[in-house]
C-alpha cells in the first residue's frame, strides 16, 4: 500500500538506523577479535583494536542520536498525522477497498448487458 512521502521518509530513516545497529554489532565483534589477538601477544593489532573501538562508539552515537530524532518526530506528529498514542485505528480502509471492488464489478456487469 503506497504511503505518504513524509511517512516513507520516516520508514527509510528507521531502516538506516537498523543498518547502523547491525554495524554496531559487527564493530563489537571486530573489537573482540582484535582483543583476542592482543592477548595472544600480537602487539601489532593495537591500532586496529583502537580503530574498531572508535568505530563502535561512533556507530552507537549515530544510532542513538538518529533514534532519538525519530522518537521526536513521532511525538511531534501525534494529533496531526498520527492518532493519539493510546488509540488503535482499525482497518478503516478495508470498507472503501471492498466498495471500490464491488463498484468495478457492477460497472463490468452493466457493460456486458
Amino acid at each position, binding site marked *: 500500500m503506497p504511503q505518504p512521502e513524509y511517512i516513507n521518509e520516516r520508514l527509510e530513516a528507521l531502516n538506516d538506523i537498523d543498518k547502523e545497529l547491525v554495524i554496531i*554489532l559487527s564493530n*563489537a565483534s571486530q573489537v573482540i577479535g582484535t582483543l583476542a589477538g592482543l592477548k595472544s601477544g600480537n602487539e601489532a593489532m593495537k591500532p586496529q583494536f583502537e580503530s574498531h573501538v572508535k568505530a563502535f562508539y561512533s556507530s552507537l552515537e549515530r544510532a542513538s542520536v538518529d533514534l532519538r530524532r525519530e522518537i*521526536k518526530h*513521532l511525538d511531534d506528529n501525534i494529533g496531526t498525522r498520527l492518532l493519539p498514542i493510546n488509540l488503535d485505528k482499525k482497518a478503516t480502509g478495508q470498507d472503501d477497498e471492498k466498495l471500490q471492488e464491488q463498484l468495478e464489478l457492477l460497472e463490468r456487469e*452493466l457493460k456486458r448487458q
Partner: protein
Amino acid sequence: MSTRSLLEQLDRTTELLAQSLAQIVKFSSLSKDSDKIEESGQVAESVATMATDGIVLVNTHTSQLIKGIQDLLVMTRTIREKWLLSQVPDKKSSQDRQIDVEKCSKLLEEWVSVVVTGTSPQ
C-alpha cells in the same frame, strides 16, 4: 508505549551498550592478571576461580550487548508500526468515498433499469 518511555528505554539501552564493551575488555584481562598472581606464588585455585569469573562476566556482558541491540531493533519496529497503523485518515480519501457513493447510486439505478425493469440504459 509512549514517547517518554521510548526515550527512557533508549537512554538506558545506550548506556548499557556503552558500558558492555568496556566491561568485556576489562574482564577479558582478568586471566592475564591471574598469570601475574601465579608468578608471585599465590594459590593456583584462586587463579582458576578468577579466570572462570572473568569468562563468566565476559559472557554476561556479551549477552547484554546483543540483548541491547535487539531491544533497539524492537524499538525501531515499534516506531515503524506506529507510523503505519496509527495514521490519521487524510481528507483526500474521505472525498474519494463521497464520489464513490454518488457513482454507486448511479450504477444501482442503471442496474435496476436494465436488469429489473428490462429497459435499455439511457
